[in-house]
Structures are given as C-alpha cells and as structure tokens.
C-alpha cells in the first residue's frame, strides 16, 4: 500500500515535471503570450493615411489614435452539428453572435446560406442525388427569408432559424414570439443576404443567439445534409 502511494506521488511529480517542460505546452503558451504582447502594443492605426496628388482629404470615422478599440465580431460556434435526424422530431441547435465597439452610427449583421441543407455524402442504398431539406415555410406556409411565422407543428418540415436577444435588443423584428422562425436568404437562388440584427445606438457589447431548427419527413432520403451559413458584421455609414 505504501509502495503504491509513493509510486503514485512520484508518478504525479514526474507528470508535473514533464508537463511543465514539454515543448508543445510551452510553445503554445509562449506563442500566445507573444501574440498577446503584440496585441497589447498594437497601434491599430499607426500611420496617418498617406495622401498624395489631388486628394482633398481622408478621414476615418474614429479619431486616429493609439490603442483605439476595433469594431469586433465574434461567433461562438462555427460548426453546428445536428447529429442524427429523426423524422418528425425537430432538432434545435444554437450559437451566439457578439458585436463589440460598434461605431456611433450603429451596425448590422447580415446572413445568408450558400444553398438549402443538401445531401453531401449519400449513404449506402441512397442514390447520389440532389436530395435536400427545403427551407421551412412555417406552419402557415408563408414564412420566407423576409417574413417570419409560427413553426410548432411537427409535421411541418424544413430548415429555419430564429433570433433571440441576449445582451441588447438588436434582433430584427419578427421574433418577439418564441414560436416564430424564418428562412435564411439562399445565395444559390440569388437571394440577397438579409439582416438578422441591427442597431443605431451604441453599446460596448451586444449579443444575440441564433437558434437553428430542422425537421424532416418520413420520406426524407437517408443522407448527410449540410450547408454553409455566412454572417457579416457591417458598421453603419
């Protein structure tokens, strides 16, 4: 027993020593530290705009100064995994979008999908097809990338999203009812990206949550379905 105890502590000590001096761990830390140091000493607009010839003037919206905070945009998860889809069992997943240091004139976030949720790798038995899960039209068959509607019926199939305010109130209109969903604008159908959030007032941080919902029918072909959603944060002019 004593032998076991001693060996255990010796082992832990060895692990600690190995862990402390292992090259991978120190490299990560040092690398990150270096970058943080660079960031700390960052002059975000180090040079005044270089103006030549007949330029009458170049101005930036915020004063050119050291350590100005940049307009920032974060996405909490860049991969949304629906796992196994089961007919008439809607699956919901969500991620968060955060905007910081927005300009005085405000900002907007636009979103679009490259295509409908499309079969990317057909399973055995399924023909390599153009199978896809259509964008939802909600329970009343009327919701689109522009207008929202209630989607609660498990027999309503498709893919859609809703927006909820976490910090601030920047989600666009149409989501005050928790049952309401919309489609993403579809690039493959030449639909222009649509706003999911906007503000004309300023605050340090704003966060919204996007909830993705997918529901398939019994006749949906077995396959892996995927697409790409793009969010772009744009300052107002």
């Amino acid at each position, binding site marked *: 027993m004593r032998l076991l105890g001693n060996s255990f502590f*010796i082992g832990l000590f060895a692990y600690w020593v190995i862990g402390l001096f292992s090259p991978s761990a120190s490299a990560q830390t040092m690398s990150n530290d270096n970058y943080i140091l*660079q960031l700390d000493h960052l002059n975000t607009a180090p040079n005044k705009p270089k103006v030549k010839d007949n330029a009458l003037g170049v101005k930036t919206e915020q004063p050119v100064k050291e350590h100005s905070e940049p307009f920032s945009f974060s996405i909490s998860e860049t991969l949304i995994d629906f796992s196994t889809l089961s007919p008439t069992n809607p699956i919901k997943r969500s991620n968060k979008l955060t905007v910081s240091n927005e300009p005085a004139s405000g900002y907007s976030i636009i979103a679009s999908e490259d295509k409908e949720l499309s079969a990317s790798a057909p399973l055995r038995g399924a023909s390599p097809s153009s199978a896809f899960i259509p964008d939802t039209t909600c329970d009343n068959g009327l919701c689109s990338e522009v207008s929202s509607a209630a989607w609660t019926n498990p027999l309503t199939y498709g893919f859609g999203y809703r927006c909820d305010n976490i910090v601030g109130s920047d989600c666009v209109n149409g989501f005050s009812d928790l049952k309401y969903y919309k489609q993403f604008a579809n690039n493959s159908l030449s639909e222009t990206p649509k706003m999911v959030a906007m503000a004309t007032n300023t605050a340090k941080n704003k966060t919204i949550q996007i909830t993705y919902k997918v529901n398939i029918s019994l006749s949906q072909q077995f396959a892996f379905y995927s697409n790409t959603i793009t969010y772009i944060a744009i300052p107002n002019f």
Partner: protein
Amino acid sequence: MKPPIYRTLKKITFFLAVSFFSLLISQYLNISISKVNAAHLSLGIYPPIIQIQIEPPANIDTPITIENHGQETVTLEILFKPFNSGKGESGEVVYESGKNPLIFENIMVREDGKTIKEIVISPKQSKTLTLHLDIPTDEPLSDYYFSVLFVSDNKLEERLNQLKIQGGIATNVLLSIKGIPPLIGAKPTSIGKIVEFSSPSLFEKGPVPFTVRIKNQSNHFIKPQGTISIKNIFGKTIGQVKLSPVNILADTIRSQETLWQETFLFGPYTATLIINPSDKGPSLIKSISFFVFPFRVFLILAGTMIAILLVKNRFLLVLSIYLLFTN
C-alpha cells in the same frame, strides 16, 4: 520472498504507468480544448468607416487593421461590395447586386506593397493592410460607396448533418471624386434640406424627443453639423442639443432621433434647428414650438381644491341649516 530487484522493477513499472496515464489524460484534455476553441471565430477591424474626397488624378494609401481575436489561424477572403442606403434612413448598408463598377479595378488591398485577395492571420495577431486607390484623370466625377469585406473560409470537412458557419467583418469606404471647386466669390448654393424637424407639440414633462431628417441634395456625401437651441417664453436660450455628425449619402435622406434631457419644464418653448451641410454653404434653419404642462399635477391640485371647497361649502350649508332651525 521475492528478490529486491523485483520490487524495484515493480516500482519503476508503476511509476511509468502513472506518468503515461497522466500524459494521456493531458493530451486528451488538450485535444478537447482545441476542439472547442476551433469552433470560435472572433475578428476586429479598424477603422469602421473611411471617408475619402479626391480630385482626380489621385493616389491614396490608407491603413486598415484587421485582427484575429480567436484561438485558431483564420484565412480571410477580401471582397469589395458596393452599397447604398436602400429605403432606410438610419445609415444601414444595403449591398447592390450585379457586377461591381469598373472603378474597383483601381482599388486594391495591399500587404507590404503586394496586392492580396486573401489574408491569413494567426491567433491573437493583427495585420495592418493598405487600401490603395489609384484614380485616373478621366474618372467620372461621382461618389462610390463600398465595403471592404474580410470573410472567413470554413474549410471543415462535410460530415454528418451539420451547418458550417462563416463569419466576416467589413469597413465602409465613402469615396467622393469631386471636380474643381467653384471660383472664390461665387455664391454658395445650398446642398441640403431639412425634410423634417418635429417633436410632439404637448408634453407633461421632459425629456423632449426630436426627430430630424435631412436630405442631401448634392452629388457627394456630406457630414453636416447641427444643433438644436431651445428658448423659453421670454426668448432666453435655456438648452442646446448637439446632433451627432452623420454621413448622408448623395441624394438621400438621413434620419436622427435625439433627446433634450431637461425634465423640469413648464409653458411654451421654441426649438430651432440649425444645420450646416458644409463649411462654405448657407445654414439651414427651422423652428418648431411645443408646450409643456404637468396635467396630472394640475388635476390633482384642482381636484384637491374642489374637494376642499365642497367640504367647506357643505360645512357652511349644514351650519346655516342648523342655526336656522335652532333659532
């Protein structure tokens, strides 16, 4: 009785096993952490808006700083997208569909002097790029409004049922290509118009909201300065609200809401809006009136007075009847 070497070997074996197991756990944790971090994207950009006014020909270099605040290296595609204000009046960007105008052939993003179409940024790193504009002499005099977009490229493999999320961030460029300014002495013409200056005409108390809508009637964007002065019934200026300067694109209207934060108000007031669309042109002036009257306080006071009078009168009436009958 086992030989001592056996016990030593057993100790060493156990020691190695514990070390190996600990390392395995640490590696597993590292992988888990990096998987979580891999799913996060965070970008920053500075400046958010760049205003450029030129008289062709002109060469301009202006810096754009892009930052990767995330834990993973990101590859960002650089795109130019022309925009307008759409139907909105709050400064929202509405991207135009269709082919980019030819002027984009003369606009590029450069890194260390080389034109780039994409950029790779390591975690916690920032890069200062140069937006280069080379405007030739024969460029038509006009305004061009466009965003420089930096959009991430999600290269995760397609597996299972999933959404790949890409993120992007933009900086807006307002480019004004102007002609030769008018001769000195020429009468300045107005380039703007006050479309609306309003507030509710009757208030119970402050603060007082104002709506201001300005139209830019020129062919170039403007950034007017404006103030609202508030005078009381005696003509004395008792408050001033400075409007945030905002860009108004050519031939569009920009709307602004502002508040005069004063709360203790009573009587009639006059608010005068003065807008200076440019340094040289004439000012735009418009006045409105509003009245502040504390209804609820007045009603409570009036009600109390009436009640007192009623009680008093009733008391006098009762007293009179009593005296009449007792005498």
